[in-house]
């Protein structure tokens, strides 16, 4: 597309540009007025061959805009729709990427815990603790200490220590376990998970062998 750009002289009347544009549109030529700094310019689209600039035009230039750089309403809508589609697809792909990246395991990094003082444990008989999200209990029985997970292997309910029965009871389905974690009755398929216990002086330490996999 060809366009003529007319820069009017600095001393012309400010309304001259509009008048010129009206005059041109009366002849069927499209023209737009723009201010460049303090200068009035008139941009004439597709000027006819016989059109010559009026005397109050200081400088005139003809520019040629190649077809592929012209923005029509259609090409704008096309690019807009493409940009929108690419944006949405990109956001979706990014979100999926974030989702697929595995999260940091929280609280599971602790593999050894000091859970009680030996003297207090002997007095109380048991002490609960927690490896991150996995609760456990350490029970003193005679001279031995037993450390077990409280998560029932049936459906993951938390079992409770019953000092009278000397058993761990699951409240959900009345399952019971002995201090070795073995199933005495009820539906659980496996013994309770057990932890290593060690005593250093008066400190009772519980160690978890492997990490809990989620």
């Amino acid at each position, binding site marked *: 597309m060809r366009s003529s750009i007319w820069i009017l002289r600095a001393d012309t009347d400010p309304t001259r540009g509009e008048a010129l544009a009206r005059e041109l549109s009366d002849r069927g030529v499209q023209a737009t007025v723009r201010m460049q700094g303090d200068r009035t310019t008139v941009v004439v689209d597709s000027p006819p061959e016989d059109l010559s600039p009026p005397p109050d035009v200081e400088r005139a230039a003809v520019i040629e805009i190649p077809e592929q750089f012209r923005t029509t309403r259609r090409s704008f*809508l*096309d690019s807009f729709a493409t940009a929108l589609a690419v944006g949405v697809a990109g956001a979706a792909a990014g*979100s999926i990427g974030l*989702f697929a990246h595995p999260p940091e395991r929280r609280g599971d990094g602790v593999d050894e815990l000091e859970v009680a003082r030996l003297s207090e444990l002997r007095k109380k008989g048991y002490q609960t603790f927690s490896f991150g999200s996995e609760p456990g209990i350490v029970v003193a029985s005679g001279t031995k200490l037993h450390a077990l997970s409280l998560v029932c292997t049936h459906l993951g309910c938390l079992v409770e220590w019953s000092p009278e029965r000397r058993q761990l009871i699951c409240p959900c389905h009345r399952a019971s376990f002995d201090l070795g974690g073995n199933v005495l009755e009820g*539906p659980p398929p496996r013994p309770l998970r057990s932890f290593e216990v060690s005593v250093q002086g008066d400190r009772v330490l519980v160690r978890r062998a492997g990490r809990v996999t989620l």
Partner: protein
Amino acid sequence: MRNVNLTAFLDRPVVEHRTFLSDPGRVAVFLFGIEVVTGALLALYYRPAPEAAFASVQLISNAVTLGWLVRSLHLVAANCLVVLAALLLIRAFFRRAFLGPRGFSGWLLTVGFLLLMLAFFFTGEALPWDQDAYWRTTVTAHLVADTPVVGPWIAGVLRGGDDVSGVTLIRLYAAHALLMPWAAYWVIHRMRALMRRGAIG
């Protein structure tokens, strides 16, 4: 990039006074697409084992980036599908769509679509394997077992044993994620074909 065929999309002929139920097949495809994508994503973390299922669902909801969003989308789109299926059935009933040349097969498909969506809901609800899921599955299995003649057999297949157990969870998951999506794909495809010929709705 001029490959977006906007004009063809805008010029597509549509019914006057169009509502979202004018083209329910498209709505079903859209919702089912969301289910497939979010379901595949959830399967990256979900573990169908009794001791791990709940923990893996907790992991998705609380620890995985945008996990809450993916899980909610899966649930919301599932709800919408059940509502859509129910609306289609009610509309077919009041329009007497079950009469006419292809009406009855269309009616069967519409009923089948609703039943399938409810089956998706039942199996999907059990997957977190919390107390709710466990007892709901137990109750449903008892209901199924009360069906005359074939009931006990179906309940046995559903549970994979005499009681609801870890085997049941694997079966529900397999049905939810491996078998039923193909059935849903087929039903939606057939429904759309019948809709184009005007036999549904």
